[in-house]
């Protein structure tokens, strides 16, 4: 791919992501403030449920929930809108010569916008409370999660073209994943018999990377993170190749 094609594709990616986010808040009273209000409301809700109803106290606990909920919103919204992306942009898929992975990637990129605003708030609160992040671990966590979520979104988007039930299954799947990922509870509270649910869940690892980078900086393990980065990058590369190979089938079936 030449330089011009790369810059064109990046501009399409940016335009789709930016304009879609803009459209979402168009005509609302609070406008772009929703990018901040929404995650704050979620954090407040889960902190109330876990802190007040379940009685789990401690700043760490609330901060972990805040980190987890903010991240989960980013990933789940990316994957649910990524799943529908080929069908949503059917006319573009069928009529514009462009690499199709841009479409699910634009959903992930657009949700990253929202995450970034929520993250800034969160980081300010963390610094105020005395938690200084491990910047390298944070950057690695961001790179791993972007690659992994982009890969999953692309896989689900392709699957949804051929098996249209995928969209329904993703909605249920994400709800189940939210509860089996240690977001509103620490991994240590999961009974030993069910620890495999955490060991097999890639999102549990991603949450741990962020918690370690932001709160428990002494627990950061760079080796594991580099390994996860390589695996995510390979998965995304292979899925992009697969998408290119089956593009005629996608155009026919979308």
């Amino acid at each position, binding site marked *: 791919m030449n330089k011009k094609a790369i810059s064109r594709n990046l501009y399409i990616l940016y335009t789709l992501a930016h304009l879609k986010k803009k459209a*979402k808040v168009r005509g609302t009273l609070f406008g772009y403030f929703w990018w901040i209000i929404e995650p704050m409301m979620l954090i407040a809700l889960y902190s109330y449920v876990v802190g007040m109803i379940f009685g789990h106290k401690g700043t760490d606990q609330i901060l972990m929930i805040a980190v987890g909920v903010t991240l989960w919103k980013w990933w789940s919204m990316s994957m649910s809108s990524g799943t529908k992306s080929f069908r949503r942009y059917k006319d*573009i898929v069928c009529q514009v010569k462009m690499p199709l992975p841009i479409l699910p990637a634009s959903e992930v990129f657009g949700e990253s916008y929202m995450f970034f605003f929520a993250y800034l708030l969160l980081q300010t609160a963390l610094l105020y409370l005395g938690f200084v992040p491990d910047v390298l671990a944070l950057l690695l966590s961001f790179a791993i999660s972007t690659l992994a979520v982009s890969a999953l979104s692309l896989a689900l988007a392709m699957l949804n073209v051929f098996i249209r039930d995928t969209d329904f299954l993703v909605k249920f799947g994400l709800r189940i994943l939210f509860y089996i990922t240690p977001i509103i509870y620490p991994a240590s509270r999961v009974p030993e018999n069910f620890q495999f649910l955490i060991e097999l869940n890639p999102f549990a690892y991603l949450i741990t990377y962020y918690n370690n980078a932001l709160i428990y900086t002494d627990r950061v393990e760079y080796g594991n993170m580099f390994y996860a980065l390589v695996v995510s990058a390979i998965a995304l590369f292979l899925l992009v190749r697969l998408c290119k190979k089956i593009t005629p089938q996608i155009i026919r079936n979308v």
Partner: protein
Amino acid sequence: MNNDKKLVVELENVTLKYAQSTSFNLKRFFLSKHERKRVVSNSNASREDALSDVSIKFYEGDIVGIVGRNGAGKSTICKVLSGVLEPTTGKFHSNLGIGALLSLKSFFTKELSGLDNIYLIGALLGKNKKEIEDKIEDIIDFSELGDSIHKPTETYSSGMVSRLAFSIATSYRSDILIIDEVLSVGDKYFKEKCNTRMKSIMKESKLIIIVSHSDSDIKNMCNRAIYLDKGQVIMDGSVDEVMNKYK
């Protein structure tokens, strides 16, 4: 014909087979073999070739009208020309920078404003931010949308959408312009304005492909016509000859 003109795009024995339709559903799974055959034969999947052994040469300065019944392969040929679909067999040569422009109206994202859609479509047509911004004023002026350009396109009438689509289509110019049914644009006044615009861009584009069901569009604008049926070229020649045959 056209031997004195420069060859710019060529389709050589192009056949495009439909990729197999492979959506899975339980209904299809439980249908009897007989029922499955009946369902398939009633659907598009029954025809194997979307284009069958198509050979066409396009020359610089051609304004080609493509006519044919629904399902004849008109839009498919546009997709091959714009590079979206690659021929299953045969060759496609092009010396031009392809500017994809098919059914532009369908690109509109209804929750975005007209202005945002100009950016989005510009990006999809391969333009960068500066190239898009250079044309914005021209697009808004020509479409006569005024302040409505800032409103979501879901609030537009179909005439407004058509006007905007036509303005975008004819403002972002490429060497090759492919227009698939974007010409049915509103009232008589605007139609005349469109015809004038088309005449001016005809001088600038190297190749224009127009797909239309309207006899008058083809007769007014094109200097050559191609009649397609069931994925095959039935006739390629002067507009009058082809339109007589098509009738």
